[in-house]
């Protein structure tokens, strides 16, 4: 079934009749990132106005692979369960050279996690669920058919010019979040430019509706018989929709290749028959680029407006949600006067780090799929040839390294040598089952001390959560140690860990984090 787009109503904004009071946060763009940002701020008690130039959810499936970490974030925003229930759960990827499988990977080989490694779910569903939550929130004012035409800023805030079907108005905002996508008009309004690499490669992306019982796995082909020596990807989505990506090369004419008469015969070769309906299609180029900085005074870039990567690593939508995760608690504290604006520089630092890691992985995958002539192609082809004969070459075959959250560089953070690397400072606190509940669910969205196998020190400035030493908790948090204290940030990042913490050490670090010093 193709998706049934239901337009959201345009509601006359109050600003058209009288100036509105200043808003703490104005979010531009009601895509997954803008909506998630609004919900995250609302979780922290902060109001926002969300402006979108359109009045429907994403046209086309666009971002479809939502990672475990994204599902954990979406869960905190109230839509994680809906996404998992509707989505196609998968964890295994298979890579083929011609007709032979050369490599496969399992993204979540161990049990004891609440969320699966990935679900495939069309972006329009994720937006639908997030929009429903946002519309139901007293703290979120979601305005469709409100197009931003100008942004200017002063030291203490920003002004946003808006055009609607009934006229134009202005909003005053403490902060503006530019969640307006890869082609961000706000980026252009501020005269900012992306830096990085644009690859000379084009892919056709198509959704087809088809009755089939293909496995819930990611399948990628190098040089398949059915696509003349190029690359191809097949991915299953809900509602009998399949995503197909086909490499086209740089010499093809994008307008010509984007015609259904041209696309349908190509897809017939992939699936082996013509019993499908073309649901959506587009042509895209590969780019790995980002802004130099994401925080520009009172305007903060979040998601694709700040950084873009080639697909095949699921690092676009998932990277954007991690931006939201790193920004929400900090911006909420600034707006409430509980933290200085300096704390926002930590968002900039951490997410530039995350974007660089995504760009690095994505660039490497792109180069492997689309090597330049000469040595790069010789080694690519050598790797594919060896993969059928030698085990070491199989993991070198790079059809995309799928999104895992980066570890933030918290180099000064207290740490204990020998404790598991998976829970080192800067990493997302690993989930683990706790009887009928889950460790991450118990953390909430605040700073907490996790006391494992021992009572928490008394009189801390933050809430303490005491956890028994269950097998998964021991494996993921303790290793050979008998007990530990972990300081976990509101975005569920491990801030520090100790075997024994002297009086005042934890409180001092908590203060440093809120002051943007750690």
């Amino acid at each position, binding site marked *: 079934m193709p998706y049934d787009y239901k337009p959201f109503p345009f509601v006359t904004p109050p600003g058209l009749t009288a100036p509105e009071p200043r808003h703490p946060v104005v979010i531009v763009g009601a895509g997954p990132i803008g909506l998630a940002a609004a919900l995250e701020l609302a979780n922290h008690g902060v109001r926002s106005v969300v402006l979108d130039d359109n009045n429907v959810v994403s046209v086309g499936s666009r971002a479809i692979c939502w990672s475990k970490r994204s599902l954990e974030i979406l869960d905190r925003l109230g839509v994680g369960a809906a996404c998992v229930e509707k989505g196609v759960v998968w964890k295994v990827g298979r890579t083929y050279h011609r007709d032979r499988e050369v490599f496969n990977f399992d993204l979540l080989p161990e049990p004891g996690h609440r969320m699966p490694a990935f679900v495939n779910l069309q972006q329009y569903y994720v937006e639908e669920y997030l929009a429903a939550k946002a519309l139901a929130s007293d703290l979120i004012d979601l305005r469709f058919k409100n197009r931003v035409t100008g942004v200017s800023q002063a030291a203490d805030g920003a002004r946003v010019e808006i055009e609607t079907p009934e006229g134009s108005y202005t909003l005053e905002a403490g902060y503006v979040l530019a969640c307006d996508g890869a082609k961000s008009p706000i980026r252009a309004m501020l005269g900012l430019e992306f830096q990085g690499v644009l690859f000379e490669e084009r892919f056709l992306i198509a959704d087809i509706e088809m009755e089939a019982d293909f496995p819930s796995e990611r399948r990628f082909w190098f040089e398949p018989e059915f696509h003349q020596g190029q690359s191809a990807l097949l991915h299953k989505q809900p509602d009998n929709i399949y995503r197909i990506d086909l490499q086209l090369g740089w010499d093809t004419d994008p307008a010509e290749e984007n015609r259904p008469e041209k696309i349908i015969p190509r897809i017939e070769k992939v699936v082996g028959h013509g019993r499908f309906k073309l649901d959506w299609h587009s042509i895209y180029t590969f780019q790995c680029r980002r802004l130099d900085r994401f925080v520009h005074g009172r305007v903060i870039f979040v998601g694709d407006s700040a950084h873009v990567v080639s697909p095949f690593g699921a690092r676009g939508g998932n990277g954007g949600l991690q931006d939201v995760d790193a920004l929400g608690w900090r911006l909420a504290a600034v707006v409430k006067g509980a933290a200085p604006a300096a704390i926002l520089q930590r968002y900039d630092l951490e997410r530039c780090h995350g974007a660089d890691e995504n760009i690095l992985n994505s660039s490497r995958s792109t180069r492997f799929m689309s090597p330049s002539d000469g*040595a790069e192609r*010789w*080694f690519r*082809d*050598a*790797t594919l*040839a*060896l993969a059928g004969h*030698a085990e*070491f*070459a199989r993991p*070198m075959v790079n059809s995309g390294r799928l999104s895992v959250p980066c570890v933030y560089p918290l180099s000064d953070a207290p740490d204990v040598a020998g404790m598991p690397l998976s829970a080192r400072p800067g990493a997302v606190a690993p989930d683990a089952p706790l009887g009928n509940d889950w460790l991450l669910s118990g953390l909430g969205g605040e700073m907490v001390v996790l006391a494992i196998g021992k009572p928490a020190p008394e009189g801390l400035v933050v809430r303490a959560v005491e956890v028994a030493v269950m097998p998964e908790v021991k494996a993921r948090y303790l290793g050979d140690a008998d007990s530990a204290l972990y300081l976990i940030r509101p975005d569920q990042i491990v801030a520090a860990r100790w075997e024994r913490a002297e009086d005042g050490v934890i409180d001092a670090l908590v203060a440093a984090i809120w002051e943007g010093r750690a």
Partner: protein
Amino acid sequence: MSLVTKRNLADQDGAYAALIGAHKGLSDAESTAFNARLILILMNHIGDQAVIGEALALAKASGGRVAG
């Protein structure tokens, strides 16, 4: 471990002949592809990225490519 640059093969002449022999009858393109596979195999066998880095630097420095 650092890169071994002193003599390390007992039968150097034999190893050299085996390398040349493996390329016998190959076109330039086939030789290039063969070398690429061989380098990947040896690189994995070495298994030490610092050593590989030294080898890359030595190969680069000894290339004698005329600038311009």
